[in-house]
Protein backbone atom coordinates (compact mmCIF):
# COMPACT_ATOMS: atom_id res chain seq x y z
CA UNK A 1 0.00 0.00 0.00
CA UNK A 2 1.09 3.58 -0.43
CA UNK A 3 0.26 7.12 0.68
CA UNK A 4 -0.29 9.96 -1.84
CA UNK A 5 -1.29 13.59 -1.50
CA UNK A 6 -4.36 14.60 -3.55
CA UNK A 7 -2.19 16.25 -6.22
CA UNK A 8 -0.38 12.98 -6.89
CA UNK A 9 -3.19 10.44 -6.60
CA UNK A 10 -3.78 10.32 -10.38
CA UNK A 11 -0.07 9.62 -10.87
CA UNK A 12 -0.09 6.96 -8.13
CA UNK A 13 -3.07 5.19 -9.65
CA UNK A 14 -1.67 5.32 -13.19
CA UNK A 15 1.73 4.14 -11.99
CA UNK A 16 0.12 1.24 -10.10
CA UNK A 17 -1.71 0.18 -13.28
CA UNK A 18 1.48 0.49 -15.35
CA UNK A 19 3.38 -1.72 -12.90
CA UNK A 20 0.67 -4.40 -12.91
CA UNK A 21 -0.86 -3.57 -9.50
CA UNK A 22 -4.14 -1.87 -10.48
CA UNK A 23 -5.70 -2.64 -7.08
CA UNK A 24 -2.89 -1.10 -5.02
CA UNK A 25 -4.54 0.53 -1.99
CA UNK A 26 -3.73 4.26 -1.81
CA UNK A 27 -4.37 6.36 1.29
CA UNK A 28 -4.90 9.98 0.27
CA UNK A 29 -3.84 13.05 2.26
CA UNK A 30 -4.61 16.69 1.36
CA UNK A 31 -2.18 18.76 -0.74
CA UNK A 32 -0.16 20.91 -0.19
CA UNK A 33 1.45 19.74 2.98
CA UNK A 34 4.25 22.24 3.61
CA UNK A 35 2.20 25.21 4.84
CA UNK A 36 0.26 23.35 7.52
CA UNK A 37 0.81 23.71 11.25
CA UNK A 38 2.15 20.84 13.31
CA UNK A 39 -1.31 20.35 14.83
CA UNK A 40 -2.94 20.13 11.40
CA UNK A 41 -0.31 17.66 10.24
CA UNK A 42 -0.99 15.55 13.31
CA UNK A 43 -4.74 15.53 12.59
CA UNK A 44 -4.08 14.50 8.97
CA UNK A 45 -1.69 11.78 10.14
CA UNK A 46 -4.23 10.38 12.59
CA UNK A 47 -6.91 10.26 9.90
CA UNK A 48 -4.41 8.69 7.51
CA UNK A 49 -3.53 5.97 10.01
CA UNK A 50 -7.20 5.04 10.17
CA UNK A 51 -7.40 4.97 6.36
CA UNK A 52 -4.27 2.82 6.15
CA UNK A 53 -5.66 0.37 8.74
CA UNK A 54 -8.96 0.17 6.84
CA UNK A 55 -7.25 -0.35 3.46
CA UNK A 56 -4.82 -2.95 4.81
CA UNK A 57 -7.56 -4.93 6.57
CA UNK A 58 -9.66 -4.79 3.37
CA UNK A 59 -6.71 -6.27 1.49
CA UNK A 60 -6.40 -9.05 4.08
CA UNK A 61 -10.07 -10.12 3.73
Amino acid at each position, binding site marked *: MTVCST*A*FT*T*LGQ*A*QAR*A*LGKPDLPIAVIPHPF*GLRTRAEVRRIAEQCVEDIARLVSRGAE
Partner: protein
Amino acid sequence: MSDAAREQAATFEAPEDLDAINRLYRERRWSDGLPIVPPTAERVERMLRHARCARHDVVARVAPGYGVATAERIAVNAVMAGCEPEYLPVLIAATQAVADPKFNLQGIQATTNPVAVWVIINGPVEKRLAVNASFNCIGQGVWANATIGRAMRLILQNIGGALPGEMDRATHGQPGKYSFCCAENEEASPWEPLHVERGFAAEESTVTVVGAEGTMNMNTHTKDAPELVRVIAETMIHPPSNEYVHGGEPWLLLGPEHAEVLKRGGYSKTQLKRALWERSRMPAGSFSTLELQRARDSRTRELGELGAETLIPISPRPEDIQIVVAGGPGTHSVYVPCFGNTRAVTRRVEEPVNGKR
Protein backbone atom coordinates in the same frame (compact mmCIF):
# COMPACT_ATOMS: atom_id res chain seq x y z
CA MET B 1 -1.07 -14.24 -29.12
CA SER B 2 2.56 -14.13 -30.28
CA ASP B 3 4.97 -11.60 -28.77
CA ALA B 4 5.20 -9.83 -32.12
CA ALA B 5 1.41 -9.55 -32.40
CA ARG B 6 1.18 -8.23 -28.85
CA GLU B 7 3.69 -5.50 -29.60
CA GLN B 8 2.07 -4.51 -32.89
CA ALA B 9 0.89 -0.92 -33.01
CA ALA B 10 -2.92 -0.68 -33.03
CA THR B 11 -4.50 0.33 -36.33
CA PHE B 12 -7.85 1.96 -36.90
CA GLU B 13 -9.95 3.34 -39.70
CA ALA B 14 -9.60 7.12 -39.74
CA PRO B 15 -11.61 9.73 -41.60
CA GLU B 16 -9.92 10.99 -44.78
CA ASP B 17 -10.36 14.62 -43.83
CA LEU B 18 -7.25 16.00 -42.11
CA ASP B 19 -9.29 18.25 -39.81
CA ALA B 20 -11.36 15.26 -38.67
CA ILE B 21 -8.21 13.21 -38.04
CA ASN B 22 -6.76 16.01 -35.95
CA ARG B 23 -10.01 16.29 -33.97
CA LEU B 24 -9.73 12.57 -33.23
CA TYR B 25 -6.10 12.94 -32.07
CA ARG B 26 -7.06 15.90 -29.92
CA GLU B 27 -9.97 14.03 -28.28
CA ARG B 28 -7.78 11.00 -27.53
CA ARG B 29 -4.87 13.14 -26.31
CA TRP B 30 -2.48 11.53 -28.79
CA SER B 31 -0.92 14.86 -29.80
CA ASP B 32 1.22 17.48 -28.06
CA GLY B 33 -1.44 20.12 -28.75
CA LEU B 34 -0.33 20.81 -32.33
CA PRO B 35 -1.76 19.26 -35.51
CA ILE B 36 -0.10 15.98 -36.53
CA VAL B 37 0.80 14.22 -39.76
CA PRO B 38 -1.47 11.14 -39.93
CA PRO B 39 0.65 8.00 -39.35
CA THR B 40 -0.81 5.97 -42.19
CA ALA B 41 0.43 2.41 -42.76
CA GLU B 42 2.30 3.62 -45.89
CA ARG B 43 4.11 6.44 -44.08
CA VAL B 44 5.08 4.20 -41.17
CA GLU B 45 6.32 1.54 -43.58
CA ARG B 46 8.43 4.11 -45.44
CA MET B 47 10.00 5.21 -42.19
CA LEU B 48 10.68 1.67 -41.01
CA ARG B 49 12.90 1.08 -44.06
CA HIS B 50 15.48 3.18 -42.21
CA ALA B 51 15.55 1.02 -39.05
CA ARG B 52 18.46 -1.34 -38.41
CA CYS B 53 16.16 -3.45 -36.23
CA ALA B 54 12.95 -5.29 -37.09
CA ARG B 55 9.50 -3.68 -36.85
CA HIS B 56 8.51 -5.37 -33.58
CA ASP B 57 11.92 -5.40 -31.89
CA VAL B 58 11.67 -3.90 -28.43
CA VAL B 59 13.93 -0.85 -28.25
CA ALA B 60 13.07 0.08 -24.64
CA ARG B 61 10.31 0.31 -22.07
CA VAL B 62 9.45 3.93 -21.44
CA ALA B 63 8.68 5.19 -17.93
CA PRO B 64 6.48 6.08 -16.16
CA GLY B 65 3.84 3.93 -17.92
CA TYR B 66 6.52 1.45 -19.06
CA GLY B 67 5.00 1.29 -22.53
CA VAL B 68 6.90 -0.91 -24.98
CA ALA B 69 8.78 1.16 -27.53
CA THR B 70 9.15 -0.97 -30.64
CA ALA B 71 10.71 0.38 -33.81
CA GLU B 72 7.18 0.53 -35.24
CA ARG B 73 5.76 2.59 -32.38
CA ILE B 74 8.72 4.97 -32.53
CA ALA B 75 8.12 5.30 -36.29
CA VAL B 76 4.41 6.09 -35.72
CA ASN B 77 5.31 8.97 -33.41
CA ALA B 78 8.05 10.15 -35.76
CA VAL B 79 5.57 10.33 -38.64
CA MET B 80 3.13 12.24 -36.44
CA ALA B 81 5.85 14.77 -35.61
CA GLY B 82 6.60 15.36 -39.29
CA CYS B 83 9.98 13.59 -39.37
CA GLU B 84 11.67 12.54 -42.59
CA PRO B 85 12.12 8.73 -42.70
CA GLU B 86 15.92 9.14 -42.45
CA TYR B 87 15.54 10.53 -38.92
CA LEU B 88 14.27 7.22 -37.48
CA PRO B 89 17.69 5.82 -36.39
CA VAL B 90 18.30 8.98 -34.32
CA LEU B 91 14.98 8.49 -32.54
CA ILE B 92 15.63 4.79 -31.90
CA ALA B 93 18.99 5.70 -30.30
CA ALA B 94 17.39 8.53 -28.31
CA THR B 95 14.69 6.18 -27.00
CA GLN B 96 17.36 3.70 -25.89
CA ALA B 97 19.21 6.55 -24.21
CA VAL B 98 16.29 7.94 -22.20
CA ALA B 99 15.51 4.44 -20.91
CA ASP B 100 19.00 4.02 -19.40
CA PRO B 101 18.50 3.93 -15.59
CA LYS B 102 21.22 6.60 -15.22
CA PHE B 103 18.93 9.08 -16.97
CA ASN B 104 16.16 8.59 -14.34
CA LEU B 105 13.31 8.88 -16.82
CA GLN B 106 10.80 7.93 -14.13
CA GLY B 107 11.74 11.04 -12.17
CA ILE B 108 12.00 13.26 -15.25
CA GLN B 109 8.59 12.29 -16.62
CA ALA B 110 6.58 12.39 -13.39
CA THR B 111 8.16 15.32 -11.52
CA THR B 112 6.66 18.76 -10.82
CA ASN B 113 9.95 20.19 -12.22
CA PRO B 114 9.80 21.68 -15.77
CA VAL B 115 12.54 19.35 -17.04
CA ALA B 116 12.56 18.66 -20.81
CA VAL B 117 14.64 16.15 -22.77
CA TRP B 118 17.30 17.97 -24.78
CA VAL B 119 18.55 15.89 -27.72
CA ILE B 120 22.10 16.66 -28.93
CA ILE B 121 23.37 15.12 -32.16
CA ASN B 122 27.04 14.56 -33.01
CA GLY B 123 29.02 12.97 -35.81
CA PRO B 124 28.47 12.56 -39.55
CA VAL B 125 24.70 12.11 -39.22
CA GLU B 126 24.48 15.75 -38.19
CA LYS B 127 25.35 16.95 -41.71
CA ARG B 128 23.55 14.12 -43.50
CA LEU B 129 20.27 15.02 -41.83
CA ALA B 130 20.98 18.79 -41.93
CA VAL B 131 20.55 19.22 -38.18
CA ASN B 132 21.13 22.84 -37.25
CA ALA B 133 24.19 23.53 -35.08
CA SER B 134 24.55 27.19 -35.96
CA PHE B 135 22.25 30.26 -35.95
CA ASN B 136 19.20 29.79 -33.71
CA CYS B 137 20.11 26.12 -33.18
CA ILE B 138 17.72 25.59 -30.26
CA GLY B 139 15.14 27.91 -31.81
CA GLN B 140 12.68 27.40 -34.63
CA GLY B 141 13.18 27.12 -38.35
CA VAL B 142 15.00 23.88 -39.25
CA TRP B 143 13.01 20.77 -40.05
CA ALA B 144 15.31 18.16 -38.46
CA ASN B 145 15.69 19.99 -35.14
CA ALA B 146 11.99 20.80 -34.88
CA THR B 147 10.62 17.39 -35.78
CA ILE B 148 13.20 15.18 -34.05
CA GLY B 149 12.68 17.10 -30.80
CA ARG B 150 8.92 16.95 -31.26
CA ALA B 151 8.98 13.20 -31.97
CA MET B 152 11.01 12.65 -28.78
CA ARG B 153 8.24 14.39 -26.82
CA LEU B 154 5.49 12.35 -28.54
CA ILE B 155 7.38 9.11 -27.73
CA LEU B 156 7.67 10.18 -24.08
CA GLN B 157 4.00 11.09 -23.95
CA ASN B 158 2.35 8.40 -26.08
CA ILE B 159 4.56 5.39 -25.34
CA GLY B 160 5.71 6.50 -21.87
CA GLY B 161 2.24 7.66 -20.88
CA ALA B 162 3.33 11.02 -19.44
CA LEU B 163 0.23 13.09 -20.15
CA PRO B 164 0.18 16.54 -18.53
CA GLY B 165 -1.94 16.56 -15.40
CA GLU B 166 -1.92 12.76 -15.26
CA MET B 167 1.50 11.13 -14.99
CA ASP B 168 3.34 14.28 -16.13
CA ARG B 169 2.99 16.38 -12.96
CA ALA B 170 4.99 19.44 -14.13
CA THR B 171 3.90 22.59 -12.31
CA HIS B 172 4.63 24.80 -15.35
CA GLY B 173 6.58 22.76 -17.86
CA GLN B 174 8.57 24.78 -20.39
CA PRO B 175 8.57 25.48 -24.15
CA GLY B 176 11.42 22.95 -24.57
CA LYS B 177 8.88 20.22 -23.85
CA TYR B 178 7.48 20.75 -27.37
CA SER B 179 10.87 20.27 -28.99
CA PHE B 180 14.48 20.66 -27.83
CA CYS B 181 17.08 19.39 -30.28
CA CYS B 182 20.30 20.63 -31.85
CA ALA B 183 23.62 19.39 -33.14
CA GLU B 184 27.04 20.36 -31.85
CA ASN B 185 28.87 22.87 -34.03
CA GLU B 186 31.92 20.60 -34.22
CA GLU B 187 33.71 22.70 -36.84
CA ALA B 188 33.47 25.84 -34.73
CA SER B 189 34.56 24.12 -31.52
CA PRO B 190 38.17 24.54 -30.43
CA TRP B 191 37.95 21.28 -28.47
CA GLU B 192 37.11 17.65 -29.16
CA PRO B 193 33.40 17.10 -29.82
CA LEU B 194 31.04 15.94 -27.09
CA HIS B 195 30.72 12.36 -28.37
CA VAL B 196 34.50 11.91 -28.60
CA GLU B 197 34.86 13.18 -25.03
CA ARG B 198 32.23 10.59 -24.07
CA GLY B 199 34.18 7.69 -25.59
CA PHE B 200 32.97 7.44 -29.20
CA ALA B 201 35.01 7.75 -32.38
CA ALA B 202 34.80 11.04 -34.29
CA GLU B 203 33.35 9.21 -37.32
CA GLU B 204 30.57 7.62 -35.28
CA SER B 205 27.20 9.35 -35.05
CA THR B 206 25.61 9.72 -31.64
CA VAL B 207 22.67 11.15 -29.82
CA THR B 208 22.98 12.48 -26.27
CA VAL B 209 19.93 13.08 -24.07
CA VAL B 210 19.99 15.63 -21.25
CA GLY B 211 17.39 16.26 -18.52
CA ALA B 212 17.31 20.04 -19.04
CA GLU B 213 15.52 22.31 -16.62
CA GLY B 214 15.57 25.35 -18.90
CA THR B 215 17.83 27.83 -20.66
CA MET B 216 19.47 30.97 -19.30
CA ASN B 217 21.17 33.19 -21.88
CA MET B 218 24.49 34.83 -21.03
CA ASN B 219 25.37 37.83 -23.20
CA THR B 220 28.85 39.15 -22.48
CA HIS B 221 31.24 40.98 -24.80
CA THR B 222 34.30 40.28 -22.66
CA LYS B 223 37.39 38.97 -24.44
CA ASP B 224 39.11 38.16 -21.17
CA ALA B 225 38.92 34.42 -20.52
CA PRO B 226 39.13 34.44 -16.68
CA GLU B 227 36.45 37.15 -16.61
CA LEU B 228 34.24 35.09 -18.93
CA VAL B 229 34.68 32.10 -16.61
CA ARG B 230 33.71 34.28 -13.65
CA VAL B 231 30.47 35.61 -15.16
CA ILE B 232 29.43 32.18 -16.39
CA ALA B 233 30.12 30.67 -12.96
CA GLU B 234 28.16 33.43 -11.23
CA THR B 235 25.22 32.76 -13.57
CA MET B 236 25.26 29.09 -12.59
CA ILE B 237 24.83 29.99 -8.92
CA HIS B 238 21.16 30.07 -7.97
CA PRO B 239 19.89 28.91 -4.58
CA PRO B 240 16.53 27.34 -5.60
CA SER B 241 18.41 24.82 -7.72
CA ASN B 242 18.08 21.04 -7.90
CA GLU B 243 21.74 20.93 -8.87
CA TYR B 244 23.07 22.41 -5.63
CA VAL B 245 20.56 20.41 -3.56
CA HIS B 246 21.36 17.04 -5.13
CA GLY B 247 24.73 17.50 -6.84
CA GLY B 248 23.89 17.84 -10.50
CA GLU B 249 25.33 17.80 -13.97
CA PRO B 250 25.07 21.36 -15.30
CA TRP B 251 25.36 21.99 -19.04
CA LEU B 252 26.86 24.91 -20.92
CA LEU B 253 25.97 25.53 -24.52
CA LEU B 254 28.89 27.76 -25.45
CA GLY B 255 28.61 30.03 -28.45
CA PRO B 256 31.62 29.62 -30.79
CA GLU B 257 32.89 33.16 -30.01
CA HIS B 258 32.97 32.49 -26.27
CA ALA B 259 34.60 29.10 -26.88
CA GLU B 260 37.30 30.85 -28.91
CA VAL B 261 37.91 33.41 -26.13
CA LEU B 262 38.38 30.56 -23.67
CA LYS B 263 40.64 28.61 -26.01
CA ARG B 264 42.83 31.69 -26.63
CA GLY B 265 42.93 32.19 -22.87
CA GLY B 266 44.58 28.79 -22.65
CA TYR B 267 41.71 26.75 -21.27
CA SER B 268 41.38 23.11 -22.23
CA LYS B 269 37.92 21.65 -21.63
CA THR B 270 39.18 19.95 -18.47
CA GLN B 271 40.69 23.18 -17.14
CA LEU B 272 37.51 25.09 -17.97
CA LYS B 273 35.38 22.57 -16.07
CA ARG B 274 37.68 22.79 -13.04
CA ALA B 275 37.64 26.61 -13.07
CA LEU B 276 33.85 26.78 -13.40
CA TRP B 277 33.38 24.19 -10.65
CA GLU B 278 35.56 26.16 -8.25
CA ARG B 279 34.09 29.58 -9.10
CA SER B 280 30.46 28.39 -8.90
CA ARG B 281 30.61 27.09 -5.32
CA MET B 282 27.76 28.61 -3.31
CA PRO B 283 27.63 29.27 0.45
CA ALA B 284 25.09 26.85 1.94
CA GLY B 285 23.57 29.82 3.78
CA SER B 286 22.19 31.04 0.43
CA PHE B 287 19.72 28.15 0.44
CA SER B 288 16.34 28.64 2.07
CA THR B 289 16.15 26.77 5.37
CA LEU B 290 14.21 23.89 3.83
CA GLU B 291 16.54 23.61 0.82
CA LEU B 292 19.51 23.54 3.18
CA GLN B 293 17.85 20.63 4.96
CA ARG B 294 17.16 18.91 1.62
CA ALA B 295 20.81 19.43 0.64
CA ARG B 296 21.90 17.93 3.97
CA ASP B 297 19.65 14.92 3.34
CA SER B 298 21.04 14.53 -0.16
CA ARG B 299 24.74 15.46 0.10
CA THR B 300 26.05 15.05 3.67
CA ARG B 301 27.67 11.74 2.76
CA GLU B 302 29.46 13.46 -0.13
CA LEU B 303 30.32 16.80 1.52
CA GLY B 304 30.24 16.19 5.28
CA GLU B 305 28.35 18.44 7.71
CA LEU B 306 26.85 21.48 5.93
CA GLY B 307 27.00 24.78 7.84
CA ALA B 308 25.88 28.19 6.53
CA GLU B 309 29.48 29.00 5.47
CA THR B 310 30.13 25.70 3.70
CA LEU B 311 30.82 26.22 0.00
CA ILE B 312 28.59 23.82 -1.93
CA PRO B 313 29.82 22.67 -5.37
CA ILE B 314 27.20 22.52 -8.12
CA SER B 315 28.18 18.95 -8.98
CA PRO B 316 30.08 16.21 -7.17
CA ARG B 317 33.11 16.50 -9.47
CA PRO B 318 34.43 19.15 -11.90
CA GLU B 319 34.09 16.70 -14.78
CA ASP B 320 30.33 16.50 -14.17
CA ILE B 321 30.04 19.94 -15.77
CA GLN B 322 29.22 19.32 -19.44
CA ILE B 323 30.22 21.55 -22.33
CA VAL B 324 28.88 21.59 -25.87
CA VAL B 325 29.71 24.22 -28.50
CA ALA B 326 26.90 25.35 -30.79
CA GLY B 327 25.25 28.45 -32.15
CA GLY B 328 26.11 31.09 -34.72
CA PRO B 329 28.16 34.29 -34.46
CA GLY B 330 27.46 36.47 -31.41
CA THR B 331 28.59 37.03 -27.86
CA HIS B 332 26.10 34.64 -26.30
CA SER B 333 26.24 31.33 -24.45
CA VAL B 334 23.50 29.42 -22.66
CA TYR B 335 23.49 27.88 -19.21
CA VAL B 336 21.28 24.78 -19.16
CA PRO B 337 20.68 23.70 -15.57
CA CYS B 338 19.81 20.04 -15.25
CA PHE B 339 17.12 18.26 -13.24
CA GLY B 340 19.66 17.28 -10.56
CA ASN B 341 18.96 13.57 -10.15
CA THR B 342 19.85 12.64 -13.71
CA ARG B 343 22.89 11.97 -15.84
CA ALA B 344 23.07 12.46 -19.60
CA VAL B 345 23.31 9.34 -21.74
CA THR B 346 24.90 8.99 -25.20
CA ARG B 347 24.04 6.23 -27.69
CA ARG B 348 25.42 5.43 -31.12
CA VAL B 349 23.04 6.03 -34.03
CA GLU B 350 22.77 2.74 -35.94
CA GLU B 351 21.94 3.46 -39.56
CA PRO B 352 21.23 0.82 -42.24
CA VAL B 353 24.31 0.16 -44.39
CA ASN B 354 23.55 0.76 -48.10
CA GLY B 355 19.87 0.59 -47.28
CA LYS B 356 20.23 -2.86 -45.65
CA ARG B 357 19.62 -3.78 -42.01
